[in-house]
């Protein structure tokens, strides 16, 4: 009984954070701000479901299952890389170099650094 309540609580919490993450995608008004919403859904939203699944398998099934830990591990490896790529694309498309803070002692941020022989990029900072 207690275990069932814990499992249900994990699922509800996970569902709530998944919902808030999706709602954030609609509500937030800036591409970089919207990037914050999915990183949230993957951490607590998916995490809660996985914890519930682990507890359920140990409490009610013949064999306990720890498969879910691997999903968490893979998410923790892949999610930051996805976010990094999306924000790099955003930097290229929309952000003016002058609006970013100075890199500490370096010439430029890696995404915006151009070799000297490369032509001037076209200005695409409309949207």
């Amino acid at each position, binding site marked *: 009984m207690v275990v069932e309540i814990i499992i249900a609580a994990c699922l509800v919490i996970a569902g709530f954070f998944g919902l*808030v993450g999706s709602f954030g995608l609609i509500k937030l008004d*800036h591409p970089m701000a919207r990037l*914050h919403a999915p990183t949230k859904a993957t951490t607590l939203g998916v995490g809660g479901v996985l914890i519930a699944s682990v507890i359920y398998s140990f409490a009610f099934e013949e064999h306990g299952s720890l498969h879910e830990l691997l999903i968490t591990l893979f998410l923790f490896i892949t999610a930051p890389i996805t976010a990094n790529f999306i924000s790099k694309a955003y930097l290229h498309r929309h952000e003016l170099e002058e609006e970013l*803070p100075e890199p500490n002692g370096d010439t430029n*941020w890696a995404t915006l650094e151009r070799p000297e022989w490369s032509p001037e990029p076209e200005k695409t900072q409309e949207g």
Partner: protein
Amino acid sequence: MLKRIFPHPYLTALLTLVWMLLDNTAGPGVFIVGLILGIFIPIITAAYWPDRPVLKHPIKIAAYVLIVLYDIVKSNIDVALIVLFKSNAARKPAWVTVPLDLKTPEAITVLAGTITMTPGTVTADVSAQGSALLVHCLDAPDPDAVRDDIKSRYEARLKEIFE
């Protein structure tokens, strides 16, 4: 000799563990297959890791993981509150430069991943020579506090682990 067989002892342990988790059983057969993979994969790939970092204090990884997990939960709630109750106009997004004391690429990668996984901050870019990270904050009334927090909470600990 032992170094020949186990060029990366932690990688061997990790591969064995991941194999057992993939198989989802804990019998001796699975362990042995995992161990065989864990021994051969590091030997075959050793050539691609010429300057692998030496972990100075592996025990501190456990403490670091716990702190990050706690922060993930805490900042998830913070960001949920921002999304639900704060209007877009009242939010103060900010770009923050985090100057790096870390030198090894692996440590910087872990730091960048940690910053992204704790919601409210996303690592957007690294500077051309690797001396700073560009971090975007969802709501940062005080950007300097965010920077100091990242440096004292995560970077100082990673420096102890890696360097």
